């Protein structure tokens, strides 16, 4: 007896043309949505570049790099971008100095030492920290951290880089912790076993095998955190002040690049004026800084990532 079903082609009549058409429609729809993000990026970069060129029609590029004052709204305007960069560098350096040890140690603790119970409590807490709006962090820095620090650093001014940087660091810690933990967690168990089988203690296995194996992920998490710190606006605007000052002193009011953009954008600066064009030059500088960091991160990860199958 033949158990095969009999072949009857007349029962199978797929509409190939209709399915080809619907495939094409779906493809177009998804393509269009993908295109939106590409066009947005091109639009933003294009605007930045266009307005930046307008700016450099009026202000020599050399002055932009070498002036030691930032006074674009004064009658005797000076445009020393390094005044703003030095401010951003101060807050970001302090922030990374806080977030790097805090985030990395938290990540090591969570992935290597914490029991399942502890992790269940600590991880959501970190996520809550990541979800706090930055304006809240800003007021926390201004109204709590600064007075606290002033009690033992009397020269600390009401607006300063130090407390803005500290709180900025706390605000990016969850980012470092979470991404570093992913990188550490991704190190295969077989590598840890290999270390233990050679008589490594837990600390030796972590320091000599697990962390080097996770290095590329950890470094890229830190670079992402630096980019975030450079671009952070609310905390530094609220807590660090609006006073452009060149230098490295963290105790005085400063004006970061983002804070300047806020200041001009909130004012009644007419479109097309020099002050208006200035914010695009500053925005372009910000964009280039984070772009360089991201390219470095991309290169570093590709160079140092280990492949395990």
């Amino acid at each position, binding site marked *: 007896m033949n158990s095969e079903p009999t072949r009857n082609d007349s029962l199978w009549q797929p509409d190939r043309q209709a399915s080809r058409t619907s495939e094409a429609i779906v493809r177009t729809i998804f393509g269009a949505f993908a295109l939106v993000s590409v066009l947005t990026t091109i639009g933003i970069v294009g605007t930045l570049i266009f307005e930046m060129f307008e700016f450099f029609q009026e202000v020599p590029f050399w002055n932009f790099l070498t002036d030691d004052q930032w006074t674009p709204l004064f009658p005797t305007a000076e445009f020393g971008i390094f005044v703003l960069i030095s401010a951003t560098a101060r807050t970001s350096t302090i922030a990374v100095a806080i977030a790097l040890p805090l985030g990395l140690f938290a990540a090591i603790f969570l992935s290597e030492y914490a029991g399942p119970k502890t992790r269940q409590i600590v991880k959501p807490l970190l996520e809550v920290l990541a979800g706090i709006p930055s304006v809240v962090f800003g007021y926390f820095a201004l109204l709590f951290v600064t007075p606290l620090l002033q009690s033992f650093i009397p020269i600390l001014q009401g607006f300063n880089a130090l407390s803005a940087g500290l709180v900025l660091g706390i605000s990016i810690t969850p980012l470092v912790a979470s991404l570093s933990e992913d990188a550490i967690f991704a190190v*295969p168990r*077989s*590598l*840890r*076993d*290999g*270390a*233990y*089988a*050679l*008589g*490594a*203690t837990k600390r*030796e296995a972590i320091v*000599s*095998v697990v962390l*080097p*194996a996770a290095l590329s992920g950890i470094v890229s998490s830190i670079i992402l955190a630096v980019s975030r710190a450079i671009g952070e606006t609310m905390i530094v605007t609220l807590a660090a002040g609006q006073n452009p000052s060149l230098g490295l002193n963290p105790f005085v009011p400063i004006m970061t690049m983002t804070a300047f953009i806020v200041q001009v954008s909130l004012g009644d600066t007419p479109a097309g004026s020099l002050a208006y064009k200035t914010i695009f030059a500053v925005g372009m500088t910000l964009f280039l800084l984070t772009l360089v960091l991201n390219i470095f991160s991309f290169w570093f990860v590709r160079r140092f990532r*280990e*492949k395990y199958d």
Partner: protein
Amino acid sequence: MVNESAQIATEPALRAENLNVYYGSTLAVREVNLKIPKNKVVAFIGPSGCGKSTVLRCFNRMNDLIPTARVTGTISFQGTNLYAPSVDPVELRRRIGMVFQKPNPFPKSIYNNIAFGARINGYKGDMDELVEMSLRRAAIWDEVKDKLQESGLALSGGQQQRLCIARAIAIAPEIILMDEPCSALDPISTLKVEELIHELKQQYTIVIVTHNMQQASRVSDLTAFYNAEALEGGSKVGYLVEYDRTTSIFHNPAEKATQDYVSGRFG
């Protein structure tokens, strides 16, 4: 059935008595009794889930790293019970080395793959010499001597596994445990590792878990056959069926289950 006469009169390197291993509340392996004689190669064979790897991982307390694992019974190593509270598993693992199923070189240079174990164990001698000697003994020196600073991960699978054996030898263990060391390797690499095992037997006691019965018959002096039996509720428990000279296990086994397994009727 365990043939006492086969287990050679000399003081055994390892002796397991009434060894039971639990994962959580599930018994994984029950009542294992066996002696591993010095300077012999002992093969553990048996179907999947029979507990041969589990027993192997008791010998250097790697099972301690699995939070739910629990061991009862004793394993004597030079007169002391490995599971006595006074024994430090970290110290123990320096003396009983292990090679894993999948080659797991560290993401470090070939040189540092070898030097790592020596450094953490406080080796005070000439590191270059130790690296060379270990690589030579693992029969991989000629292939890597010109690229000691390259990553261990850049080697082929078979070379990686010999690097891992060199790494284990470098800390001068007394016993080397091998958990299916050739299962991820091609036939030629497998042959090289087997030749290496023959060489290493002169100096080390080797316990090797293998799925490959030809391999067991080629490399081992003694063979332990494990099997698993189903319990009520669907879980399986492994046990030692028969332990004897390899030739006896393969040609004249005492148990029918062994006969069936080595002749390929199941497993």
